[in-house]
């Protein structure tokens, strides 16, 4: 048994546990990678877990980080202990409040999982860009380098702020520390109780704003006093270092773990020293040990308390022998002399020298380097390069490490193959599928080893950016001795590949050490397995002399009834092969873990998982290896040879997992990226795909409309095409507009996710065998080659002439080429069908401003993106600014487009006399409905105009030629989720709607913050469980549509494509045609609703039929005609709301937790639906009187109101 109790947690949990216990109020807002801290606090509060003071903290989710900061500020002012958790843009939104909190000396700690701030691109990964943006507020900045420190310094920050009243920003590296799972020594309640100064808490409470002792804060001061008052605060900042050191000392006395503002490690007479902050310091430390052992005089100074910068402590930490310092900053401050930490170090040295406190004889030389931006790995090889650079005769004054900078030449070369020796440690990597539970099982393995044995364990988890069919890579280290290795594994002793298909697509064996164990989940008997491998994999296995084992995990999982969750099966195999624990003990502990995890989720779950565990070992086999590679098959090319140059040179490298190797010159310097790249990434993730039966199809095209991935398409083509594959299916097109034409509905077998929505929605059944529909899901292995060939031919067929499509309804719209395809959205995503439809209707003239969220991730996360181009090279132009500013950002698009159009029209009018083409000019300037035929004609007129302009030597003619495309109207769409539109971006959205500009807003309403994991938004409906509403949301969703239609001039509609597809198509067209602002709120099923999304359309129908999701259109121009402007397209009440609710886990789990509560919510939701419908129907009766000029009662003009009348 262990003497010291330990726990196995990630950085977020370690920190949240301390913050929760030392706080009374937490106001939070989800943002990656800090969301987990708020979620845990909310879960604990929901379970009634008390804080250290015996009360359950109040956890509130706000509408933005700005809101969270404001709430915390108010709570602090009125005497409670308050905290918050955030990162990146969230921290930036808190800056104004942070100035206030510092200025008012309110003891406060916020915990930051430090993350890159979006610049040329968004990055969710870790660097110090965000915390560096709050240096100037005066908050103390305390940095933790690993999970244990994150817990400990969280506590120290809370202790110190109470003493010195300076607010603290406690930060640690996003993902690297926030998500690293480690075994740590926990802080017990008794520890915290012993450490917290209750008198300081009481003093804080005594300063509370209260009418019992009234004071005023936040006055406005004039030039006579502001300056002095600001300086009056100096003693508190001066005292902050002392208070922190004192807190660290008290902490050490209680726990034995000793911290200091700066920690030196290395040779006692070091000459070359690296200064570094955060998780990177452990890497430098490891290299220092390595170099010192070889006799080199090197060291590392880890910065913990960055601000206030304690010059004396810093100087005192440096060995007097220091000659050269490399200061490593995990941030970039373009234009600065050096990065912030480096500048502070330089200033501190100079200050010490001036003060005469310097211990060195010759002023040390200081160089500054950047590392790890945007979550870039920082490895011992890179740290080694830093010391090598310091040893140069003239060290580079400014450098980067970890990349190849062939643009400005700043990067240090490093040996990618370098690995530090790691005796006594097992390192294992696991390649899994997002949905197969690999990460969860690995977390369980770490807990098993960490909690039940003396071993030390660590885990990092890397995911790809896709939400369907995503690969996860788990990096696990185990050892009997403590270690701190915050970098990914480079040479693993154990490599497990849980998906056989990955071997074709990724360099799974790149991470294998010679002689390592390779465990493959594969649907082949062991004696056949080797022959099924691609040649490169076979050769590598033989070259590295790997020991190979296999299990048909899917078959075992199927037999045990655990579906595709092969995780526990593979976990058993790992323990059996790695021998880190006796296998019997491992099995026992895995079962304990299953029992613990799923106990309350039902006996059947436990029973099935036990069965999976029990079966695993019997099906694990060693793979016999021949002496030579036998395969004739090689790994397929990452992208097809036909891909454009950029895709070959850049995208393909990223897809292969080698993006780290791309040099700076590979990238456009302003973040501009080509569209139309998703089609080069053939993911082949479906196990079954739809196959079309032309003889049954009724040509409704609903299948292609509903497909979230544009992976099933319809095309009309002329039978004259003779190159069709012999069996290429087609049916005579039912319609006259294309003459004698064929229709083909075709699946893209490598792009389909296998969600089944198309088959579910298909209304056409074989009369003789109604189980057979016009499309049926078919195992992909039976049809892949055939369907690949068919799809290749299908794509070659010319697109239909847009202008020729008779009617842009469901059927007609689906004959148009989607310009949003193969996104990485979840299988069955409810959002993407709307976007795809949008690109079919307006894609060739579409500008999208996209709020951050799911739609910006599947829309714009590299390596490939789904927005595409048509045959003419036109397609949606897309940009993401931020989460909160998207409405304003999109308005900017509109203003700009209008300005350029206006300029083009002005130039055209001015140049008209010179052009000698009056009819052309008149036609170009004429107003017209934006039909496809007219747009096509206008484009042809623009071509003619350019030809005419080419003959004019006038400089304005040149300008017009460049602007002429703006004579073709552009469609500006502001796209985002409910988090944006209902919450963080509502202020801006409301303002944009209040204006007259022609912008179209598409709100993809999933009723939660989907991207960050299902936190409640103001769109979350009554009774739905969501994070921060885990027992059911107590109030109904905000009626955004009703609010918007109050303006009167806004086109407002609510749609549900799965319930009434024709209505959706009509609404998008009406919204686009409306000359002012339009708002379309789109019901979007989401995995966060908790049901199989193959039933997404059925559930949309229930939502509409029950009245929970009314469909309506409010068209201002109808009001102008004196008709009721609101048309309610559904009546509701056809299905009980409870029936709709019972189909989704988000509601059903509330029923499990609190049956009476559920009944109350169901009744409330039914009443709310009825109330909403009654309100709409009331409005739908309204006829607004049409008042023409001169018809007012009191005279020709309306009487002016107010005192000026």
């Amino acid at each position, binding site marked *: 048994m262990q003497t010291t109790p330990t726990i196995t947690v990630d950085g977020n949990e370690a920190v949240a546990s301390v913050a929760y216990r030392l706080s009374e109020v937490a106001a939070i807002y989800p943002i*990656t*990678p800090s*969301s*987990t801290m708020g*979620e845990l606090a*909310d*879960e604990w509060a*929901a*379970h009634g877990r008390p804080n250290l003071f015996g009360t359950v903290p109040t956890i509130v989710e706000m509408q933005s980080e700005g809101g969270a900061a404001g709430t915390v500020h108010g709570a602090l002012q009125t005497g409670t202990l308050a905290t918050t958790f955030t990162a990146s843009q969230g921290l930036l939104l808190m800056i104004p409040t942070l100035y206030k909190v510092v200025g008012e000396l309110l003891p406060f700690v916020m915990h930051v999982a430090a993350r890159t701030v979006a610049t040329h691109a968004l990055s*969710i990964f870790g660097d110090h860009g965000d915390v560096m943006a709050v240096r100037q507020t005066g908050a103390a900045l305390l940095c933790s380098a690993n999970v244990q420190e994150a817990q400990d310094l969280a506590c120290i920050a809370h202790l110190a702020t109470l003493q010195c009243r300076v607010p603290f920003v406690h930060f640690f590296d996003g*993902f690297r520390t926030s998500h690293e799972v480690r075994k740590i020594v926990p802080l017990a309640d008794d520890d915290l109780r012993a450490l917290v100064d209750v008198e300081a808490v009481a003093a804080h409470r005594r300063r509370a704003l209260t009418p019992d002792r009234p004071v005023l804060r936040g006055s406005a001061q004039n030039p006579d006093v502001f300056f002095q008052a600001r300086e009056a605060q100096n003693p508190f900042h001066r005292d902050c270092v002392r208070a922190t050191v004192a807190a660290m000392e008290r902490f050490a006395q209680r726990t034995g773990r000793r911290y200091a503002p700066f920690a030196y490690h290395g040779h006692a007479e070091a000459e070359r020293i690296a200064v570094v902050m955060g998780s990177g310091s452990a890497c430098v430390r490891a290299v220092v040990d390595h170099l010192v052992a070889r006799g080199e005089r090197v060291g590392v100074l880890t910065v913990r308390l960055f601000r206030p910068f304690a010059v004396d402590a810093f100087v005192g930490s440096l060995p007097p022998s220091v000659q050269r310092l490399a200061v490593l900053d995990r941030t970039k401050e373009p234009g600065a002399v050096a990065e912030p930490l480096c500048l502070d170090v330089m200033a501190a040295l100079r200050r010490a020298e001036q003060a005469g406190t310097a211990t060195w004889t010759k002023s040390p030389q200081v160089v500054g380097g950047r590392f790890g931006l945007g979550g870039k790995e920082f490895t011992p090889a890179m740290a080694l390069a830093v010391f090598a650079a310091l040893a140069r005769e003239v060290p580079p004054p400014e450098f980067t490490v970890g990349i190849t900078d062939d643009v400005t030449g700043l990067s240090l070369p490093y040996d990618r193959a370098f690995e530090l020796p790691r005796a006594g440690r097992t390192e294992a990597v696991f390649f899994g599928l*997002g*949905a197969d*539970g690999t*990460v*969860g099982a690995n*977390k369980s393995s770490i807990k098993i080893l960490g909690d039940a044995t003396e071993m030390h364990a660590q885990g990092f*988890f890397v*995911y790809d*950016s896709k*939400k369907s069919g*995503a690969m*996860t890579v788990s990096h696990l280290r185990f050892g009997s001795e403590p270690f701190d290795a915050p970098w990914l594994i480079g040479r693993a002793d154990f490599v497990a590949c849980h998906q056989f298909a990955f071997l074709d697509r990724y360099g799974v064996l790149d991470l294998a050490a010679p002689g390592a164990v390779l465990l493959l989940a594969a649907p082949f008997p062991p004696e056949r397995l080797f022959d099924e491998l691609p040649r490169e994999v076979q050769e590598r296995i033989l070259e590295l002399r790997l020991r190979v084992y296999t299990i048909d995990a899917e078959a075992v999982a199927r037999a045990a009834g655990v*579906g595709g*969750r092969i995780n526990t099966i593979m976990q058993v195999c790992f323990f059996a092969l790695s021998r880190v624990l006796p296998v019997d003990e491992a099995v026992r502990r895995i079962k304990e873990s299953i029992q613990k995890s*799923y106990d*309350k*989720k*039902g*006996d*059947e*779950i436990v029973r099935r998982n036990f069965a999976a565990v029990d079966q695993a070992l019997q099906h694990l086999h060693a793979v016999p290896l021949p002496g030579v590679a036998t395969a004739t098959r090689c790994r397929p090319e990452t992208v097809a040879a036909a891909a454009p140059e950029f895709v070959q040179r850049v995208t393909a490298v990223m897809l292969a997992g080698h993006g780290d190797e791309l040099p700076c010159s590979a990238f456009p310097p302003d973040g501009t990226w080509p569209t139309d790249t998703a089609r080069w990434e053939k993911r082949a993730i479906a196990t079954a795909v739809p196959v079309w039966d032309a003889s049954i199809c009724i040509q409704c095209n609903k299948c292609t409309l509903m497909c979230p991935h544009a992976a099933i398409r319809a095309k009309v083509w002329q039978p004259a095409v003779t190159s069709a594959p012999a069996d290429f299916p087609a049916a005579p097109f039912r319609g006259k507009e294309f003459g004698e034409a064929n229709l083909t509905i075709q699946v893209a077998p490598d792009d389909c996710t296998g969600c089944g929505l198309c088959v579910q929605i298909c209304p056409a*059944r074989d009369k003789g065998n*109604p189980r057979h529909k016009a499309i049926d899901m078919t195992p992909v292995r039976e049809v892949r080659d055939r369907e690949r060939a068919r799809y290749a031919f299908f794509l070659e067929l010319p697109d239909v002439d847009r202008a020729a499509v008779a009617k842009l309804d469901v059927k007609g719209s689906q004959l148009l080429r989607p310009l949003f395809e193969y996104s990485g959205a*979840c299988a069955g995503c409810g959002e993407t069908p709307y976007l795809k439809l949008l690109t079919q209707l307006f894609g060739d003239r579409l500008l999208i401003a996209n709020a951050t969220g799911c739609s910006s*991730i599947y829309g714009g996360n590299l390596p490939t993106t789904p927005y595409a181009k048509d045959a003419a090279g036109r397609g949606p132009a897309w940009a993401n600014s931020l989460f909160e500013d998207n409405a304003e950002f999109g308005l900017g698009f509109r203003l700009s487009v209008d300005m350029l159009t206006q300029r083009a029209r002005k130039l055209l009018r001015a140049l008209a006399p010179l052009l000698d083409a009056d009819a052309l000019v008149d036609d170009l300037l004429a107003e017209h409905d934006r039909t496809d035929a007219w747009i096509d004609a206008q484009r042809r007129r623009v071509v003619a105009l350019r030809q005419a302009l080419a003959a004019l030597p006038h400089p304005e003619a040149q300008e017009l030629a460049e602007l002429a495309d703006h004579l073709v109207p552009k469609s500006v769409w502001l796209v985002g989720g409910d988090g944006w539109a209902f919450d963080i971006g509502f202020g801006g959205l409301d303002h944009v709607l209040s204006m007259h500009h022609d912008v179209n807003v598409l709100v993809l309403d999933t009723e939660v913050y*989907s*991207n*960050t*994991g*299902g936190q409640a938004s103001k769109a979350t409906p009554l009774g739905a*469980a*969501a*994070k921060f*509403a*885990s*027992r059911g949301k107590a109030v109904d969703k905000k009626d955004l549509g009703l609010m918007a239609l109050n303006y009167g001039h806004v086109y407002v509609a609510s749609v549900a494509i799965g319930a009434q597809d024709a209505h959706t198509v009509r609404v998008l067209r009406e919204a686009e045609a409306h000359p002012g602002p339009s708002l379309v709120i789109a019901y979007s099923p*989401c*995995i*966060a609703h*908790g*049901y*199989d999304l193959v039933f997404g359309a059925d559930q949309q129908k229930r939502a509409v039929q029950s009245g929970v999701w009314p469909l309506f259109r409010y068209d201002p121009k109808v009001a102008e005609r004196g008709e009721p402007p609101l048309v309610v397209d559904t009546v509701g009440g056809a299905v009980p709301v409870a029936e709709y609710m019972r189909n989704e*886990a*988000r509601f*059903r*789990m509330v029923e*499990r*937790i609190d*049956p009476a509560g559920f009944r109350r919510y169901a009744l409330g939701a039914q009443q709310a639906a009825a109330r909403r419908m009654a309100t709409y129907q009331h409005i739908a009766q309204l006829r607004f009187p049409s008042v023409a000029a001169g018809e007012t009662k009191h005279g020709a003009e309306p009487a002016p109101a107010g005192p000026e009348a």
Partner: protein
Amino acid sequence: MELTTKYLGLRLAHPFVAGASPASDTVERCVRLERGGAAAIVLRSLFEEQIDRDALAHHQAEFGHADAHHEARSYLPMVDDCVFGPDEYLAHLREVKRAVSVPVIASLNGYTHGGWLEYARTLDAAGADALELNLYAVATDPGESGDELETRALAIVQAVRRAVRMQVAVKLSPFYTSLANFALRLRQAGADALVLFNRFFEPDLDLEQLQVTTSMELSDSRELRLRLRWLALLSGQGDCGLAVSGGVHTVRDAVKAILCGADVVQVVAATLRGGPDVFGQLRDGLWRWIEENGYRSLGQMRGSMNAARSPDPKAYERVNYLRALQTWRGELDS
């Protein structure tokens, strides 16, 4: 006139019992049933399969997408008290027990051997006054013979009966090849009573969508006939209790069932249509009928028309064809 009845070791004020239905889904409804005059209340079945399906569906919703993307550790809140098991049913049982003074009979529909046993024990421990085992299954497996199916059912009944303190009734469907034999073996396996019969959800077709729909129609008096036959045939064989379920809507229906041997008359559809007061009306109506028809006691009338005592016992065994032929012959003779 004394209407008290013994059933499953319980002394009931009269034979009219609220059968398993939504009418007992809430405590308030149970109180209304008692006030309306129900002599006992059978709760709706605890469905093992439903619990497992709910649990599996929730498990998939909760864990199917967890730990699959950088930005979300899960997509639904992880809540400890969202439990999947019989807890809700047990809590309901306990609350109903506290709220009413008439006996409360739990009902169970298992689908695994372990599930039958464990849930039966749990219901026993939670204070159910008796248990109704709902052997509700459509035999669809061509690989399983009738004998195998019956043997499996008997094993369950035997195991459950041994495992619990309370008495156990078995609710049957009429679809057994040799119902009389099966009933005998059920008694031997320990069944304290038989409930005749279960009613199944029945498939229907949606002609527009070409889909199968399922629904349960409320019974009417015509369904009583099948039950009368089997009450009469099984009545008087040993001391096994008999309850009729399905088809009793009027006092006359109830009288027929009792005359054929029913100890207890379960009423569902009449309650759902007419409200809980139907129990009082049936009780009073039965009382009047007994009085008006000169029976000394309920015991005297119970089973008096069963196969052992009725003047024409063979009538219960004949098929309609034969009976019709005789009727016609008789008319010719006269």
